[in-house]
C-alpha cells in the first residue's frame, strides 16, 4: 500500500457527471483525481448514449436505402455484417472514451483506475483490479457513481437469452424475435434499432402508455407509428413468467384481457435504473427512499465537502443533466457560486424521434388556463423534401400571458430542435417572443415557430378556423 495522496478534489465515477466535474475543476486550477473502475466516460459513452446512437444512425441508413427506389435510386442492402458494424461502433466509443483521457491528461486531471470506497467524508480508498490499493485524501469529494439497471425479480439475466441494455447496445447478434420488457426510452430505442435490423420486436409495458410520464399525445403517436412499422406493443401488460425452452424464451404476459405467451430469441429487460449508492449510507449520506443521494441546488450532500451529481441524485436520468450538475458541483468546490436550476430537455432517438421540455399538456391543464398550438410535420416543406412527414410539434402556453410552459415534439430530427425549445423556456419567452424569431426556410425548426403561431391561431401553413 502506498502513502496517502492529497488532492483538492477527488471525483468518483467518470460518466458525464464525473468527467465533466473533473475537467471543470482542473480548468479552475484544482488538483483533481478522477477514479473509475471501468472505462472512462461511464455508462453513457461506453454502453448507453453513444453506442445506441451510432447503431441507430446505421439503422436509419438502412431505412433510407429501403425507401430509395421511390426516389429513383436503385440500391439494395445485400447484407449486414454484424462484426463490421460492431467494430465501427467500438471505434466510435473508443475514440470518445480516448478523447476524455486526452482531455484529462491535458488539463492535468489524474485518472486513477480502480474501485473507490469512501472511508469517512473525504478519504477515498482506490482498489485496482490487480488488488493493490491507494489512499486519497481531498478537501472535497464529488460522487458521480451513476446508476445500474433494475433487475426483474425472479428473472435471471444470463447475458445471452435474457439481457440488459448494455448487451443490447453491444449488438452481439440480431435476434429473430426480440421481446422488450419496458416501453421507456431504452425500450423504444432498442425497438427502433432491432426492428430496422430485421428482428420481430414485441414491447411489453406495464403502464397504460409507452414512455410513462411523457405527454400522452406524444406517447400515443409513437405507439401508433411503431405499430405501423410492425412492432407489437402490449401496454397495461406485465411479464409474469419467463421460461427457457430449447434455446428460446417463452414469456407469459398478463394483459388486461388475460394471459398470453410470447416466444422470443432474446429478451431485453429495460424496466428502469436505480442509483449506484450502495455503501454510501456508511459515511452518513442522506438518501431518499429509492436510494438517491439528497443534494441542494449547489449539489452539496449533507456531509460537508461531499457533493453528488448525475443519476445518483435522481431523475431525470440524462447525460446532459449529469454534465450540468458536474459543472455546478465543480464550481462550488472551487469557491464560485453556482446552482443547478436549468430546465432539462428530454431526447429519445426512436424513429421518429421524440423531444420535449417543460410541462406536459396534462400537467399544464391541471395548473390553469392554457393555449395549445400544434403543427403537423406533414405541412413542413423541409419534412416533405426529406420524405419524413410523420409527427408534430406541440407548444403549450399560459393563456393569460403567453408564457411558454411546455414543448413536445415527435418527428424526424426533432432532437436538434430541443435546444431551441429549452432556450425559449429558459428565457421565459412568450409565444410572441418566439414568433419574432425568423426561422430559416426550409427547415424543420420552422415547425416550432408554426406551432407557436398556431397557439395564437395565426399559423398560415395550416388551416385554422
Amino acid at each position, binding site marked *: 500500500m502506498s502513502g496517502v495522496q492529497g488532492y483538492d478534489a477527488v471525483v468518483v465515477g467518470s460518466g458525464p457527471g464525473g468527467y465533466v466535474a473533473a475537467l471543470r475543476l482542473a480548468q479552475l486550477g484544482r488538483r483533481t483525481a478522477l477514479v473509475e473502475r471501468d472505462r472512462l466516460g461511464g455508462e453513457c459513452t461506453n454502453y448507453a448514449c453513444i453506442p445506441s446512437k451510432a447503431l441507430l444512425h446505421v439503422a436509419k441508413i438502412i431505412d433510407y436505402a429501403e425507401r430509395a427506389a421511390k426516389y429513383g435510386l436503385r440500391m439494395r442492402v445485400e447484407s449486414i455484417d454484424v462484426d463490421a458494424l460492431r467494430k465501427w461502433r467500438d471505434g466510435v466509443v473508443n475514440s470518445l472514451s480516448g478523447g476524455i483521457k486526452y482531455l484529462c491528461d491535458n488539463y492535468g486531471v489524474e485518472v486513477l483506475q480502480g474501485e473507490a470506497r469512501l472511508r469517512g467524508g473525504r478519504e477515498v480508498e482506490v482498489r485496482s483490479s490487480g488488488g493493490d490499493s491507494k489512499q486519497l485524501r481531498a478537501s472535497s469529494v464529488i460522487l458521480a457513481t451513476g446508476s445500474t439497471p433494475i433487475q426483474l425479480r425472479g428473472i435471471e439475466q444470463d447475458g445471452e437469452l435474457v439481457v440488459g441494455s448494455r448487451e443490447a447496445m453491444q449488438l452481439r447478434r440480431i435476434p429473430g424475435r426480440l421481446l422488450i420488457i419496458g416501453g421507456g426510452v431504452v425500450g423504444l430505442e432498442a425497438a427502433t434499432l432491432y426492428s430496422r435490423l430485421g428482428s420481430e420486436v414485441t414491447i411489453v409495458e406495464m403502464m397504460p402508455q409507452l414512455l410513462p410520464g411523457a405527454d400522452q399525445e406524444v406517447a400515443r403517436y409513437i405507439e401508433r407509428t411503431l405499430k405501423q412499422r410492425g412492432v407489437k406493443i402490449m401496454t397495461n401488460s406485465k411479464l409474469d413468467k419467463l421460461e427457457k425452452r430449447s434455446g428460446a424464451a417463452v414469456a407469459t404476459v398478463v394483459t388486461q384481457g388475460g394471459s398470453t405467451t410470447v416466444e422470443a430469441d432474446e429478451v431485453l429487460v429495460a424496466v428502469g435504473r436505480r442509483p449506484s449508492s450502495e455503501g454510501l449510507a456508511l459515511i452518513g449520506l442522506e438518501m431518499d427512499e429509492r436510494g438517491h443521494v439528497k443534494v441542494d441546488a449547489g449539489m452539496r450532500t449533507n456531509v460537508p465537502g461531499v457533493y453528488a451529481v448525475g443519476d445518483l441524485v435522481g431523475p431525470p436520468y440524462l447525460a446532459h443533466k449529469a454534465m450540468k450538475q458536474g459543472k455546478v458541483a465543480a464550481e462550488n468546490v472551487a469557491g464560485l457560486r453556482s446552482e443547478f436550476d436549468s430546465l432539462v430537455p428530454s431526447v429519445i432517438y426512436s424513429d421518429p424521434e421524440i423531444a420535449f421540455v417543460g410541462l406536459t399538456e396534462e400537467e399544464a391543464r391541471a395548473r390553469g388556463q392554457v393555449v395549445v398550438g400544434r403543427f403537423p410535420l406533414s405541412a413542413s416543406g423541409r419534412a416533405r423534401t426529406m420524405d419524413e412527414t410523420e409527427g408534430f410539434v406541440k407548444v403549450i402556453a399560459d393563456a393569460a*400571458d*403567453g408564457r411558454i410552459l411546455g414543448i413536445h415534439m415527435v418527428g424526424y430530427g426533432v432532437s436538434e430542435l430541443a435546444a431551441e425549445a429549452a432556450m425559449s423556456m*429558459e*428565457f*421565459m*419567452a*412568450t409565444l*410572441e*417572443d418566439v414568433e*419574432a*424569431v425568423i426561422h430559416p426556410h426550409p427547415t424543420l425548426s420552422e415547425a416550432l415557430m408554426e406551432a407557436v403561431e398556431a397557439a395564437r391561431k395565426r399559423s398560415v401553413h395550416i388551416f385554422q378556423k
Partner: protein
Amino acid sequence: AVPAGTPAGVRAMPAARRLAKEAGIDLGKIRGSGPGGVITVSDVKKAQEERQVGKGEAR
C-alpha cells in the same frame, strides 16, 4: 436587425421591445426579471401599470 433603438447596455425580449416602443416606455428605466436581467414583456406591462397608477396619484 435587433436592438436598433434599444438603449446601449439594455437587453430586452422581442415582445418587450415591441410593447415598450408602442407604449412609449423607456427600456433603460426598467429592471429586467429575465435571465441575466433581460427585460420581459411582463416587466414592461408592470412598468406600464405603475406609470398609470403614478399618473392617477399625481392627479
